[in-house]
């Protein structure tokens, strides 16, 4: 990890709130990779890079091999901070400086230190789960199953993940929800009933939402905390939340764990719905103005639900969590919120379903930044 020392912090800097306008920032004195990282990070979090004369804020400093300095001031020459960061790779230091800059300017916590999960096509008919920095750098393969894999989802403490793998066990390939501990590398079969096994959305209390077809229709089930598949091979201790033939997909919890939102069809119409965690009636989440909504993702602050609209292509939309008027932002699918409830990572098709690239939307400013392309098409990012 890095060490950050500050001789000045936010001493009279003009602070901008969560405004819907791009914040003009100039960066001075940085070179190479560090300059690129700073610019990318700040743009993702709602800034635009401008010449010093046009900037509301100027970030100035120097980068060495394992050292980074930064002085932030506003256009009235009020100092924000004077930082010295060292002890890590240049990208790590630059991300830390970006976060500090956003914190000083907006008062909000940055997301430049966070990580993402996603799937990537690695060969014909093969996909693996990858983890990388939020900007797609430093990717690491977490699986090597040479099979299909979908729906990587973080556990709430980010110490592990769930995903849906088409594993062959006992001579039979079947969808299998895998629980993967990132500290130990240990993997276990979390759910492998006959038929479909997917989902793997864990609530803060450890309850895991699954989509299973063990009883002939794809339905939503809850696995209680500490539930173990091999001790419940008939699924008698699972809580079945739905009983209907219609498809269900993309379970996502409200951050307090009180509601589970997912996509289904109501009267043949694609809809977002929610059900109380203890079971009960399915409640519709209206998405006025949106067409064929799927893939809901509940924001960490509980206020919003992002989703994919399908109208011609695919678009990213956001609706208040209780439902209402939906706003459509940009072309894309597979939305997932960042911890700041402001950025959304998503994928965008660039000539076919196997050539998807990741991008990040800044909701208040509607700015979109594309992530670098990978060798294979990527899918279904999940944000720490």
């Amino acid at each position: 990890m890095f060490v950050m020392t500050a001789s000045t912090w936010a001493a009279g800097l003009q602070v901008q709130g969560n405004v819907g306008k791009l914040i003009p920032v100039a960066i001075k004195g940085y070179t190479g990779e560090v300059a690129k990282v700073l610019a990318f990070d700040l743009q993702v979090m709602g800034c635009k890079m401008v010449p010093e004369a046009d900037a509301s804020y100027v970030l100035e400093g120097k980068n060495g091999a394992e050292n980074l300095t930064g002085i932030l001031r506003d256009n009235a020459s009020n100092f924000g901070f004077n930082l010295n960061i060292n002890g890590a790779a240049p990208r790590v230091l630059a991300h830390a400086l970006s976060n500090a800059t956003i914190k000083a300017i907006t008062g909000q916590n940055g997301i430049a230190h966070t990580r993402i999960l996603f799937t990537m096509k690695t060969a014909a008919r093969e996909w693996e789960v990858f983890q990388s920095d939020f900007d797609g750098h430093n990717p690491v393969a977490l699986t090597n199953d040479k099979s299909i894999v979908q729906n990587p989802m973080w556990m709430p403490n980010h110490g592990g993940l769930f995903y849906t793998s088409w594993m062959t066990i006992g001579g039979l390939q079947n969808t299998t929800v895998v629980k993967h501990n990132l500290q130990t590398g240990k993997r276990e079969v979390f759910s492998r009933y006959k038929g479909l096994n997917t989902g793997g959305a864990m609530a803060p209390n450890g309850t895991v939402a699954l989509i299973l077809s063990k009883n002939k229709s794809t339905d939503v089930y809850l696995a209680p905390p500490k539930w173990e598949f091999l001790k419940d091979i008939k699924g008698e201790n699972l809580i079945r939340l739905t009983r209907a033939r219609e498809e269900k997909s993309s379970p996502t919890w409200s951050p307090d764990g009180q509601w589970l939102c997912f996509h289904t069809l109501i009267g043949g119409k694609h809809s977002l719905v929610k059900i109380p965690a203890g079971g009960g009636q399915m409640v519709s989440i209206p998405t006025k103005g949106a067409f064929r909504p799927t893939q809901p993702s509940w924001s960490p602050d509980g206020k919003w639900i992002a989703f994919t609209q399908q109208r011609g292509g695919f678009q990213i939309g956001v609706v208040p969590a209780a439902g209402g008027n939906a706003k459509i932002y940009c072309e894309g699918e597979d939305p997932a919120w960042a911890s700041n409830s402001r950025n959304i990572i998503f994928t965008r098709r660039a000539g076919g379903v196997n050539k998807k690239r990741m991008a990040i939307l800044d909701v208040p400013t509607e700015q979109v930044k594309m992530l670098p392309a990978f060798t294979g098409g990527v899918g279904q990012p999940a944000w720490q």
Partner: protein
Amino acid sequence: MQGATYLKTLAVVAALAAIGCKSATTDVTNIPGKTLATNGGNGNGNTGGTGGTGNPDLGPGGTGGGTGGPEITPGPGFGPLGLPGEHEIVRDAFRKIHFAYDSAELPPEDLPHITKVAEYLVQNPQHLLEVEGHCDERGTEDYNLSLGERRAQAIAQALSELGVTANRLATKSMGEKMPVVQGSDKESFAANRRGEFVLYVPLAAPANGANGATPQRINLTPGVATP
């Protein structure tokens, strides 16, 4: 009980033969079980003897109990953790079923084909069948996974109504991941919206009915193991 279940399948075949294969499903499934058992007990020889079937839900299979020929012992079938014993995996033993856009409704014109598949399975009680559901790329990845499963379930349910016991059938959604045609045009999409049949033939057991009759194999081609 297990014998009776199997006898029911015999009777279903007999009933199909009697009333023809077109739109027979409703009539077939409505016949009370007890009558079926009696009918089936007479045996008609078409299906190669009688035998027990596995527990429809789970667990080890029955060990027979019929009287229509040398004993055969169908395996436990598909369980949550896989298959008992070695199987030859035969892809595309039966032709694919195609679906309309965003639909899991079985095309009525495919009912005779599905009936043939059911007949084959009834005649080969040790063979297991996996139904794969596939989608085109016009849908989100998450939704297509559920849609593919619903397509597979629709086919499996039809087979079940035609007398194939549940533990011999498995469904597997492949979502949009395994298109047969790469392309983003109408024809490619239509080809990719499909159900596929994957037959699991036990290596250690006789492939045919136990009475020595050779059941008609439908386009049975050498298998390619799933990846």
